């Protein structure tokens, strides 16, 4: 009876796991199938062909989009880490005028849904003349309120004696932050880095609003425009273009899955 229930549990888990994994495996396999074979349920194509990838690469600037996405997500992540840490350090460990107001404003911003500010942000970008620029993709994301709150929480737990000793040695607050706090904060820094990078990498609504030039599109945007605009021509081609977006993420996820889960679940709960 007990072994029977064990088998049932594992069978259930296997079916569930397959439900989540199989569609992605099927997608990967489909991109290697010929037009005739496309849509078959199996994972192993009779004839492996790279035609879908060749077509996709030739018809839209996916190489450029990969570069754009990487650049935008990396810049945003670095900015959120460096400037976010500075803010969090000041809020957690330094006394300065306006500190209480800044904390209150941060919590207030957290309560406002993004849909409310979407249009005014868009008109702001238009008025700044930033449509079709990297600035439009990056500037609204250089700070992340959730990241600041997480970093502040962590910085509050680092002993004051470390700061006092460093100040006696004549260290500036910037050096204390980056040479003493940062090495101690690796766990929270990696959590912030992952959810910030992933958020930017997967974002599609904002780029759809502020970028129209194909050369500046990020991957999810170009993928959406390409698949919807009929540029792909066939499902195999549009799935092949989706692979450009998915493969780097899945590879990173396979190596760092625990960090991904901790980061993306944690940010959602606190954010």
């Amino acid at each position: 009876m007990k072994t029977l229930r064990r088998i049932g549990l594992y069978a259930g888990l296997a079916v569930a796991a397959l439900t989540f994994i199989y569609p992605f495996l099927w997608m990967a396999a489909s991109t290697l199938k010929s037009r005739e074979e496309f849509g078959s349920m199996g994972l192993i194509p009779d004839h492996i062909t790279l035609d879908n990838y060749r077509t996709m690469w030739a018809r839209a600037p996916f190489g450029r989009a990969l570069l754009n996405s990487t650049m935008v997500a990396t810049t945003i992540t670095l900015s959120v880490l460096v400037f976010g840490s500075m803010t969090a350090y000041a809020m957690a460990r330094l006394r300065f005028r306006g500190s209480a107001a800044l904390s209150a404003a941060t919590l207030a911003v957290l309560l406002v849904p993004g849909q409310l500010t979407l249009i005014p942000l868009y008109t702001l970008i238009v008025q700044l003349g930033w449509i079709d620029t990297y600035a439009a993709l990056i500037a609204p994301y250089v700070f992340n309120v959730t990241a600041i709150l997480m970093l502040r929480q962590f910085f509050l737990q680092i002993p004051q004696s470390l700061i006092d000793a460093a100040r006696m040695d004549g260290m500036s607050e910037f050096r204390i932050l980056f040479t003493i706090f940062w090495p101690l904060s690796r766990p929270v820094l990696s959590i912030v880095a992952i959810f910030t990078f992933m958020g930017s990498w997967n974002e599609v609504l904002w780029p759809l609003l502020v970028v129209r030039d194909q050369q500046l599109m990020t991957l999810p945007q170009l993928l959406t425009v390409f698949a919807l605009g009929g540029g792909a021509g066939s499902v195999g081609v549009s799935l092949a273009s989706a692979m450009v977006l998915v493969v780097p993420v899945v590879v990173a996820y396979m190596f760092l899955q625990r960090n991904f889960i901790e980061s993306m679940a944690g940010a959602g709960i606190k954010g």
Partner: protein
Amino acid sequence: MRHEHRSGSLMAAPYALFLLVFAAYPIVFALVLVFLRWDLVTAPSLAGFDNIKMLASDGRFWRAVANTFVFLSIHVPLQIVTALALALALNRKLKFRGFWRASFFLPVVISGAVVAILWSNLYATDVGLINKLLVRLGSSPVPWLTDPNTAMPAIAVMVTWKNVGFYVIIYLAGLQYIPKSCQEAIEIEGASAWQRFRYLTLPSLLPQTILVVTLSTINGFQLFIEPYVMTGGGPLRRTYSVVLYLYTNAFAYQKMGYAATIGVALALIIGAVVLVQRRVIGRAEAL
């Protein structure tokens, strides 16, 4: 002391500036836009209460709100049940626990745009994987995304599939807080597995359930890329979402004032719905 003040101000200044430009200004300007007519080309003109009046009688907007409630009525309960079931399974002594957890979480890390494109194909009437499976099982194929009655439920199921791993983690965290002593006590009392679940596990997980309801509701109101990619809001506007309508007004019709009005209304609706939900769940707890 003075040195500390100066460093603090210096370090926090960029963030203060950011809040002013990218948070405070847009919030204030959203409320201003409600009373403006503006196509971004000509100068904005005063609209008085026109945007609000238009919104109140705009069938397309209320259709989108109603669609969202259809979505939520399927998505939220389904999300709770599937996440709870998977979390309970994962909470036992298991082999390959990390693998199971990672596989449930996989769709969470994948872009919504990719998931939408992939599932358009899984749902396709003639060549879709799901219908092929149904046909093999002896059923007739279902036009998932082209039938007005199944399109929104199909999207709701897909979004549940995409996000469930996230909510599994929330429930797992909650399960670890149920004291071992309580579990042992209730077992000694001779409670059945169902009774243990009904009278210990479920009530203990109430904070997590509230979180799941709140987050999946907010998420539902943000529905955009799925209808944008999969149905264009059709068939018969049955999958049109509020954010898709907002986007269309801004981007296709160039009506900034009206689009901002939709945004403000959406924020108010989200706030109201979440508040009502918390009240209802809180009252259920008291019973």
